[in-house]
């Protein structure tokens, strides 16, 4: 067990070193930087979504929090002139407040209800932001968002990348700390058996709400980062796609593990960009959909469990292979 922990630690350090050195090695290539920035932002987003599943809940509408974070942070930054590095946290707080509201409504519900309500919420909020609040939000045209670092600064993308990477590392360390604490233990107790958890003196409602708020907060933070990086925000940020990406990343990587969303985001983003460069517009969605279905059916613990699965099945394959040879 100790051995495994050490392997994980080395791998983590190696991954971080890669993340830090990659832009330097590629000579501050702008295309790679943009890919990396989006990737790291979605690592935060997917990790936030995944955090929710630790408590046995699931959301199909995290785009709502992503978008609320983006909109609130933008509007405050525009109105007050504060730097986006401060307003992103306010955006996250707004998302957490909305998350609390949604959470209170559905915390006592079965997972289907929660999924339906969150899914519906994201669709409805898009309509509202686009039409009802268009005087503030600019309707479907959206609003311009102040950039994280002014693009007059030389190599501003590099600074943006490193600052976002730093935030991502801190967020994941925070998740790790929470999940290794008593709270994390309570989450898994609730996830495994809510009745038994209650018998053990854990209040499932409180912990589920906490998980929902934390998840919404960091989804909002990720949304705010994305919007300030892109420089504009439109109601399309509440799209079904945005809700589905963190789910796809987390599942393909491995649900309920810290590494899962990170690995999933990296693998699927690279695959996605690869398919795009092959010129598949609709085809790539279909391929991602098929991969998702196959992963859920055949590799339910995601890519993280791949080495384990191979180890488990390797002897069988070996036997079969030898049989083939002896024939």
């Amino acid at each position, binding site marked *: 067990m100790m051995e495994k922990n050490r392997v994980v630690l080395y791998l983590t350090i190696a991954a971080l070193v890669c993340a830090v050195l990659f832009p330097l090695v590629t000579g501050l290539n702008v295309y790679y930087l943009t890919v990396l920035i989006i990737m790291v932002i979605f690592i935060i987003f997917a990790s936030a979504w995944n955090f929710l599943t630790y408590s046995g809940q699931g959301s199909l509408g995290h785009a709502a929090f992503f978008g609320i974070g983006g909109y609130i942070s933008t509007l405050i930054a525009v109105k007050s002139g504060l730097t986006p590095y401060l307003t992103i946290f306010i955006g996250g707080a707004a998302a957490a407040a909305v998350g609390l509201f949604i959470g209170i409504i559905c915390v006592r519900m079965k997972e289907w209800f929660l*999924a339906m309500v969150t899914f519906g919420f994201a669709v409805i909020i898009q309509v509202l932001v686009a*039409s009802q609040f268009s005087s503030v939000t600019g309707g479907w045209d959206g609003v311009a968002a102040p950039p994280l670092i002014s693009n007059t600064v030389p190599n501003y993308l590099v600074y943006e990348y490193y600052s976002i990477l730093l935030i991502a590392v801190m967020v994941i360390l925070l998740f790790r700390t929470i999940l290794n604490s008593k709270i994390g233990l309570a989450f898994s107790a609730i996830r495994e058996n809510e009745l038994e958890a209650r018998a053990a003196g854990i209040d499932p409602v409180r912990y589920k709400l906490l998980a929902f708020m934390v998840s919404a907060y960091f989804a909002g933070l990720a949304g705010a980062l994305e919007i300030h990086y892109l420089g504009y925000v439109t109601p399309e940020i509440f799209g*079904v796609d945005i809700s*589905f990406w963190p789910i796809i990343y987390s599942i393909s990587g491995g649900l309920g593990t810290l590494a899962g969303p990170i690995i999933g985001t990296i693998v699927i983003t690279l695959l996605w960009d690869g398919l795009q460069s092959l010129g598949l517009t609709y085809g790539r*969605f279909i391929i*991602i*959909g098929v991969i998702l*279905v196959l992963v859920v059916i055949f590799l339910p613990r995601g890519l993280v469990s791949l080495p384990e699965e191979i180890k488990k099945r390797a002897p069988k394959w070996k036997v079969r292979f030898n049989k083939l040879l002896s024939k």
Partner: protein
Amino acid sequence: MDIGLDIFLQVMVWGLYAGCIYILLATGLNLIFGVMKVVNFAHGQLLMIGAYVTFSFFVLTGFNPYVLLAASIPILIVIGVSIERLCFRPILGTGKLNEIFISIGLIYILENVAAMIWSDEWKVIQSPFEAITVTIGSMKIPVDYLIIIVTTVVILVGLYLFLKKSRLGLAVRATSQNRKAAMLVGINVERMDMLSFGIGAGLAGAAGTLWVVSGQVFNPYMGSVPAVKAFAIVIIGGLGSIPGAIIGGLILGIAENFTVFTIGGAWKDAVAFLILIIVLIIKPTGLFGEEAE
């Protein structure tokens, strides 16, 4: 705001007609949930496929689009059965959230296959009866609305008779009530899964046809809004309850049309969500829902 009786009735009829499409979707969802305890989140996409099937046959054959129910329902039944067999059966009884994840994959696949076949432009067709209205008292009702309401009633009565009077329907209800006991008395529950998923998809196909006939626009990505409303109805009426779906659908259809009439069209899509939240606060299991296990 002063609303006269005739306007009130008029809005009621609009609501009834709007509710019909949602009822068909929600009934299918509930039937599937009742038997399999699975929520198909890609149900709105089945409606979308139904709409495109109707559209294609309409362009090819020029038949009256109502007749094309005879095409969209069987085709969607076949699609539904294949989806159940290939995607949902392998994950039955595994993790609680897996069916949701499978549905997401299905949404991507269905939407983009549709976009590949039919392009992603908005499409619309005209009903042959578009210009005809029926005057009842002081109300003017497009005859299409009446046909849609009657069609829905016929489909639902058919489903009711099937579930209540036929032996196969009895088996479906038995599986829905107690899967293990149904298995013990020799019912092939996996066949019931396939059957209920097929019927649910067929109902979504019928809803798709009615969507097209009523002159509403559609594109490959339109499925999620009607699906959200169907979910709202399912929650309002109670998960797994077919009478609940019908009443919930009527409530939603009428409420939506009153909203359009009084506050404005932009709130139309939000009202489903507001009703949903109110119902959830008052009665979390829905109006007709079984108590949670």
